């Protein structure tokens, strides 16, 4: 069974990471057949995220074996002490060895260059040693999952440094990143700089990115639970927001951890949903919005309703409108349910394709479906949709605008040039431009193919003729 290593970087990354470990333990606990800890078995699905360690002999046990001490497969990185210290004081502290924490005291001052260049170099050896140590404890390492924010200094800078380090050390292992993009009225002024600089690294070194936008998370939470709104003093419902992201990772890996009629391994997700190496940004949405531990009364009862909601922008973790502009390049759905059958899924997908979803002409069958029979903890089912859609260029355009407003005046740039050159800014912006262009290209090529087809409806849908065999 494949194993994954979680790398949580920075304050935001650490908090989401902790929520993730909490939820993962709860999920596995609810699946155990007995509540007696001595009888619980460490099985293949647990080994995806945890090691089973015999503290006395200091060895790891492979599955199946009775659970002794579970240790998380994780690397926790922060350049400030606050969050890591609180983890060590929480009940989760037993999940981690001391060596899994890589920390410093002074923080990165919301500066990507400090995080990436300064701390990157300083901790390069330590980071690669710890990563290697974690990787060697895995039988078959399938992916690295990185969680960090894009607006700050540590998460953004050091997080992306770690990403490029992972690419160097383990190029064949899948790298999936869940970056948290800052909201428009984020209180960190330099967040556009940090985000754009980090996006460049993400584009070049990640296999698959599931971007999350703080604004959307707040929307989801406030829409689904009217009592929790952004309070007057601007405090966000961070707890609920973190839960949504943590559940995203859990649901993503559910099909590779648990059984089901149609399994989707993590490595199959980029294989099927990412046709071009740079265009690996997937818009995710989860139904029902998983931010409460208890059952949500607004869960739709009808299967068809679930699928209709899947396309609704209300549940997306990014503020884009796929139904209105742009085109689907590929789409994946992972359903966790005991009762829903493959035939239901196929039927609904056919309906959706017909009415609501516009796919590129050359990839009309660009669907990847996974069905897992283990529903999430506390819910009867859950549907995770991952869409590779060109409307994400809107997100990049907005980011570029915010970046340009600051960069035009070279505001705050001098903080960065201590550790990097001005040229890096230019390159990062260029990268964004190229991304936006590439997505636009796909839309335009598709329109061309569309018009040629309409003119000559008898000719095949591709404008490149097939090979002709001369006899």
């Amino acid at each position, binding site marked *: 069974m494949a194993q994954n290593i979680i790398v949580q970087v920075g304050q935001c990354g650490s908090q989401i990471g902790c929520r993730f470990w909490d939820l993962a333990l709860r999920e596995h606990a609810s699946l155990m057949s007995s509540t007696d800890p001595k009888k619980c078995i460490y099985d293949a699905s647990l080994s995806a995220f945890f090691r089973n360690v015999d503290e006395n002999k200091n060895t790891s046990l492979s599955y199946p074996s009775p659970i002794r001490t579970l240790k998380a497969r994780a690397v926790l990185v922060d350049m400030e002490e606050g969050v890591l210290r609180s983890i060590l004081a929480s009940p989760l502290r037993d999940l981690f060895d001391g060596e899994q924490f890589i920390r410093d005291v002074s923080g990165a001052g919301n500066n990507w260059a400090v995080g990436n260049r300064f701390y990157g170099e300083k901790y390069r050896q330590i980071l690669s040693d710890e990563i290697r140590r974690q990787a060697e404890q895995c039988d078959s390492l399938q992916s690295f999952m990185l969680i960090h924010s894009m607006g700050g200094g540590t998460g953004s800078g050091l997080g992306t440094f770690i990403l490029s380090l992972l690419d160097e050390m383990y190029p064949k292992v899948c790298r999936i990143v869940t970056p948290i993009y800052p909201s428009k009225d984020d209180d960190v002024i330099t967040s556009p700089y940090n985000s754009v600089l980090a996006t460049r690294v993400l584009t070049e070194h990640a296999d698959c990115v599931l971007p999350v936008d703080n604004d959307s998370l707040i929307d989801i939470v406030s829409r689904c639970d009217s009592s929790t709104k952004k309070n007057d003093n601007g405090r966000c419902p961070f707890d609920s927001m973190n839960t949504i992201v943590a559940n995203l990772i859990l649901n993503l890996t559910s099909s590779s951890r648990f059984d089901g009629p149609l399994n989707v391994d993590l*490595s199959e997700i980029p*294989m*099927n949903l*990412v046709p071009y*190496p740079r265009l690996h940004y997937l818009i995710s949405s989860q139904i029902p919005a998983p931010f409460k531990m208890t059952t949500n009364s607004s869960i739709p009862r009808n299967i068809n309703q679930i699928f209709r909601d899947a396309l609704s922008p209300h549940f997306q973790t990014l503020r884009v409108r796929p139904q209105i502009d742009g085109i689907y390049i590929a789409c994946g759905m992972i359903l966790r349910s005991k009762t829903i059958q*493959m035939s239901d899924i196929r039927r609904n997908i056919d309906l959706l394709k017909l009415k609501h979803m516009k796919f590129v002409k050359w990839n009309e069958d660009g669907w990847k479906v996974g069905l897992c029979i283990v529903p999430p903890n506390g819910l009867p089912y859950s549907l995770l949709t991952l869409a590779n859609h060109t409307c994400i260029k809107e997100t990049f355009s907005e980011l570029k605008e915010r970046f340009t407003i600051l960069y035009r005046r070279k505001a705050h740039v001098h903080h960065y040039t201590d550790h990097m050159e001005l040229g890096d800014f230019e390159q990062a912006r260029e990268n964004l431009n190229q991304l936006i262009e590439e997505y636009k290209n796909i839309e335009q090529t598709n329109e061309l193919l569309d018009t040629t087809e309409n003119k000559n409806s008898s000719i095949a849908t591709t404008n490149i003729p097939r*090979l002709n065999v001369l006899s």
Partner: protein
Amino acid sequence: MSCIILQLGQCGNQVGQCVFDTLIEDNLTHSNQTKLSITNDSSINDYIRHSLDRFFIQYENKLTARALVIDTELKVIEQLMNEKSQSKRHWSYEKKCVIEGRLGSGNNWACGYRNGSLAEENILNSLRWQLEHADRVDTILPILSLAGGTGSGLGAYVVECVRDELPRSFLLTTIVVPYTSGEVVVQNYNSLLTLSHLYHSADALLVFENDILQQYAKKLVSYSGIDRPTNIHDMNNILTRHLCSFLQPISNKTISICEINYLLESVLPHSFYKLLTLRCVPQLSDQALDFSTYNWSSLIKTLSQMYINNSYLDERLNWLLKPNQTRTKSIANLFLARSYDKEDIDKDLKQYFNHETFYSSFISSSDYYYLFNYRDKSYLNYEKYLSLISNCQTPVSALDRIVNKSWQLFGQKAYLHHYYKYDIDEQEFLNSFVQIEQVIKSYNQL
């Protein structure tokens, strides 16, 4: 004379297990016994003896399947080998012949192919173990699906290895073509690459299509009166019944029990035409079988109409089509008749299948079709069973579809970087395109 089955990937393993179960079931159906025992009827004795010898290693009352179980994920292998499944069966798999990987191939043909080269030594060792425990092995039967990464990529590598290791053996590959509407986005790439590699290394490709199996399964489920959706077991069952109908012993006028490669030599006259399809009648659910009787002429007539309509199912046939309006042409047809009667069917066959229009012009009329019989035992619980193996144009439409869709993706250079990562480059793709286009063209010209 033994056959070794290679179960490659998830589909291969599920079907392979079903095959062995069905073979045992068939060997038991001449009587209502639950244990295999030698009866007084010597011809059935022969049948059972040959069938067991062909597919199982017998030692001290234990049956071990002549099979290699190969997969890169643990889930299916665990299901096959766990205690519960083993206890339900009369036979078992040999642990030395189970080759498992841990990481899967991620629907990536190139990754599967690479996994093949990593596992080559283990696979060849297991193969040699099987060869040592058989007197003579002439036929190797890989079973794989085209859509995923393991069955297709690893499967292609394994078939090439086996061809190198046993150059004179007969390699009959059973392939399952995925649903048109897609299980895996890159399935057409995977199918294309596998087909071209297999066409090069294997002697024959027996083609099954998921779309058709699904239709067939739906029909059977609706006949049975139970209202439930079809599932993968139904489809596997149908495939296995078809497959076993020609894997079991059969004879012709001159030879008492014919070997599989001898059988298929007659349908493979030309090394460039390797695609085989299998049509069988009657097509009934188990419940309906008890209540139906058939005679040979109606079976043969239905079969001929199925052929003319280019269909695998005996429903929605256009009975008004005449033989000269046939929608498919073949190079050769092979009939396998199994029943417990000794009726002569030559006349009916001649009446319905001796039409020039059915066959390509370069075939002479004496080679149109061949008939093999086993008339001392019925097949499973079918009173009469007739299988038609054709080397015909029917599977070409599936190939055409695969090439069309792959070409569209290839034209946009989509998904190629996943393959480059494992050293499969554009040239490899182009070679495959060329190879399969040639196959399509030569079949279309029949």
